[in-house]
């Protein structure tokens, strides 16, 4: 996408604030359920409603999840972190303050390695990650002269992950965002569902002339809820800022909203209009004190992390860094891949072949049908069976695609499809030779032309011979035999 190239002479500086909704069963300070999509206000307890006299009680599972994230990013996990109150009035904020961590977050000073498309790995700093409660939702549609308030989401635990301003393009920002997305799902601390808002992102964007020491004035872009929109919003913002600066203007520090329909960002509020949140430590909650034993116990629950898994895939399967990164982007896909390789008959090219199939046709069919991996129509052993027939040359790669389509549609094994369709590849040299002989005999003119130097006619003979075998001839064998027949006649 060449349109996303930064204009010459400018450097882009991006930092992201990611809100990952933690996958706890109950809310961060109350016992209400956190499930998405329930009838408005059916998952709001008296604590969530901010009833007088009610008090917050910290959900230990949310703490455990935040610690997991901290450990997985090599961050410092604070032995003492503090919840503060962020005070502002809004109808979907029942208490008039949001409980969040401010001066003393639970996670600080980590980093994550992000593999760029050019194959270079970039380390992005994680400034901090802190726990906080989500607000409710205001609803305006379908209501006249009124707004609806749904407090089901109020009190849902969030981990706000703040990066260093380490990214230099929208591309890098998205790659980082994807990496964090992969990580939180590996850790099973967030379902990563961007449509439902369980994984959201605000981008801080500024530009400066190349070589400038000071950072430019930044704008914060809110409301970006897909990887594609993050890239588009940042790009729009970069161009806007450069236009302003090049025409002699100044960037005003402000919060801007991304409008996906118009593909533009619009000013929401300037720094001057920003609330004074009057943060102070929440006297209703004790500081979160974590000892070494607790942190060790959480460390023991960490799964193999994406980078570790990718490295292992490269080492044990001989995959490229790119393939390994792609396969390990999802823990489920990686597990699927490994199960396919384990179920197939060992073969020299198997690992690469399996990788191509899992990332290729298999993923394409899942996408086409909008299915989750768990609902795939071809199982690991089914795909392994197909790979076996490719390895032992029972079918060609071209036929395999057709076999796979039928396996997916009919729920059959590869062998059953091959048998039923009579697609077993012809590897019998005599049979292929017979077909070649017949084709040569039927086309004397072409033969003469070929022999007089028209090499391109070789393709013609391959096509004719394949046609004569209904496409079942082993392509490599056919090529070899044809070459020697054409020469020897």
């Amino acid at each position, binding site marked *: 996408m060449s349109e996303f190239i930064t204009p010459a002479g400018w450097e882009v500086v991006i930092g992201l604030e990611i809100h990952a909704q933690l996958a706890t069963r109950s809310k961060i300070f109350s016992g209400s359920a956190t499930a998405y999509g329930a009838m408005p206000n059916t998952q709001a307890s008296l604590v969530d409603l901010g009833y007088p006299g009610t*008090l917050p009680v910290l959900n230990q599972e949310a703490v455990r999840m935040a610690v997991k994230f901290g450990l997985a990013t090599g961050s410092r996990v604070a032995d003492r972190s503090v919840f503060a109150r962020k005070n502002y009035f809004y109808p979907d904020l029942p208490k008039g303050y949001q409980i969040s961590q401010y001066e003393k977050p639970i996670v600080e000073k980590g980093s994550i390695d992000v593999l760029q498309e050019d194959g270079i790995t970039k380390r992005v700093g994680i400034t901090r990650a802190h726990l906080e409660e989500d607000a409710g939702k205001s609803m305006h549609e379908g209501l006249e002269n009124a707004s609806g308030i749904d407090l089901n989401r109020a009190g849902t635990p969030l981990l706000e992950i703040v990066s260093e301003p380490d990214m230099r393009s929208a591309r890098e920002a998205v790659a980082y965002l994807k990496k964090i997305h992969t990580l939180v799902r590996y850790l099973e601390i967030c379902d990563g569902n961007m449509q439902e808002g369980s994984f959201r992102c605000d981008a801080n964007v500024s530009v400066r002339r190349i070589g400038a020491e000071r950072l430019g004035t930044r704008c914060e872009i809110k409301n970006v809820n897909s990887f594609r929109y993050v890239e588009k919003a940042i790009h729009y913002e970069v161009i806007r800022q450069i236009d302003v600066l090049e025409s002699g203007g100044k960037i005003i520090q402000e919060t801007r909203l991304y409008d996906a329909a118009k593909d533009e960002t619009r000013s929401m509020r300037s720094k001057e209009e920003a609330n004074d949140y009057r943060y*102070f430590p929440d006297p209703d909650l004790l500081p979160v004190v974590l000892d070494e034993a607790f942190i060790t116990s959480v460390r023991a629950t960490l799964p193999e992390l994406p980078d570790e898994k990718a490295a292992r895939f490269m080492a044990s399967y001989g995959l490229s860094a790119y393939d390994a990164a792609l396969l390990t982007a999802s823990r489920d896909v990686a597990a699927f891949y490994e199960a396919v390789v384990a179920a197939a008959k060992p073969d020299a090219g198997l690992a690469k072949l399996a990788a191509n199939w899992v990332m290729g046709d298999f993923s394409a069919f899942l996408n086409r049908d909008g299915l989750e991996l768990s609902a795939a129509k071809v199982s690991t052993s089914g795909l392994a069976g197909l790979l076996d027939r490719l390895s032992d040359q029972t079918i060609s790669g071209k036929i395999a695609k057709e076999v796979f389509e039928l396996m997916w549609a009919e729920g059959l094994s590869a062998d059953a499809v091959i048998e039923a369709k009579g697609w077993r590849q012809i590897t019998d040299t005599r049979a292929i030779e017979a077909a070649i002989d017949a084709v040569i005999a039927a086309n004397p003119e072409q033969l003469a032309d070929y022999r007089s130097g028209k090499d391109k006619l070789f393709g013609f003979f391959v096509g004719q011979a394949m046609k004569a075998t209904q496409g079942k001839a082993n392509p490599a064998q056919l090529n070899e035999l044809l070459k020697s027949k054409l020469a020897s006649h």
Partner: protein
Amino acid sequence: MTLHTRSLAALALGLTAREFSSVELTQHFLDRIAASNGALNAFLTVTAERALSDAKRADALLAKNQGGALTGIPIAHKDIFCTDGIQTTCASKMLKGFVAPYDAAVVERLTAAGTVLLGKTNMDEFAMGSSNETSHFGPVKNPWDLAKVPGGSSGGSAAVVAARLAPAATGTDTGGSIRQPAALTGISGIKPTYGRVSRYGMIAFASSLDQAGIMAASAEDCAALLAPMAGFDARDSTSVERAVPDYVAGLQQSLKGLKIGILKEFFAEGLEAHTGARVQAAIEEYRRLGAEIVEVSCPNLPLSVPTYYVVAPAEASSNLSRFDGVRFGYRCENPRDLLDLYKRSRGEGFGSEVKRRIMTGTYVLSAGYYDAYYLKAQKVRSLITDDFKRAFSQVDVLLGPTAPGPAFAIGDKVDDPVTMYLNDIYTIGANLAGLPAMSIPCGFVNELPVGLQLIGPHFSESQLLAVAHGYQQVTDFHSRVPAAYA
């Protein structure tokens, strides 16, 4: 002997011996309330029906010999504790008509112990005040002199107990709201250690200072009621997981060899001479009882009032944000838009003292002022806590006045907030340090009661109650009742 002047132990004895039933006892207090509440304005809600049905249930238990020490004993709750199905107003227009769908932990525990609910008592609005004059529902009168304040913020509970309209009442103490009204009405009141009693269901004023306690005629009665109130509650993260001693049994601890500290700072300028003399006399009484009297100093204590008036309003400004006219409580008529709804609901729903504190609190938390006020106040708070710690390394308990003088006239200080705030000068320290403290009557000045304050180390309630009880064994100030209510 009349029912309303008996101790809780005597009432319990009468109930178990079937000398009278809980229904009879309850009706007796309901009759007294009906006769006197019009003048005192001490109850905001009288729950006569509920009281009688509670009493019937208690009688049924007593008939089966299944009652406990408090079964069938009528009490009142400060209107700051949420009560399921019964209006809880915090004496504010903001919560007029508000009915919580749950009981506060304190209410729940005292109900489980068998007490009978007579009603909800008047108070300063959202517990902000030292005279009960900030109540939206009018001031409470002091039973000793109807022209005088009963103190605050638990003034309703204090007046109810002083006039013997109930044997006991719950209170809350953020800066002296149990002890100062107890002193001004001649009753006994204890503010336990911060974390001793659950704050769940108690409408928050200043969360790091608020603590529920009990007000009754004597330390012995306080001991009986504090026991079921105290203890860990998972719903309050600041409540402490620690065993609750038997406070009633603990009353018999000897005072021989007890080391009593007299805080130098409590006897400085500001203490009215006659009040000081009554307190000194009480100290002499302790000396006679075998206690050793030592002078100690908490040099940072004089800073407690300004410290408190930064910390408490800061927390209050945030705690009271939930009263925005959106979900519960008062909402203005015909709001033009959201901002108008907020401004007018809060502007019309809160009284002036509450607004003053919200504004003070908002100011001290604002960007640019936070360090100079809030953070500085927190540092002074630690210094005061350290002062007390040092003092308690030398003595077992600290004694001093509860308030600078006896009850003052209604209307006297209402226009002078700073003078009013100074009425809590001796009580605030214990809140800042989270210490348990009591006030017990120790004499009279111009026929108005004077309070003696006892402050102990963290979780020393049992000893505090015993020290108070020892004094009450050799004095009778605690059994005096205003003539009109005898």
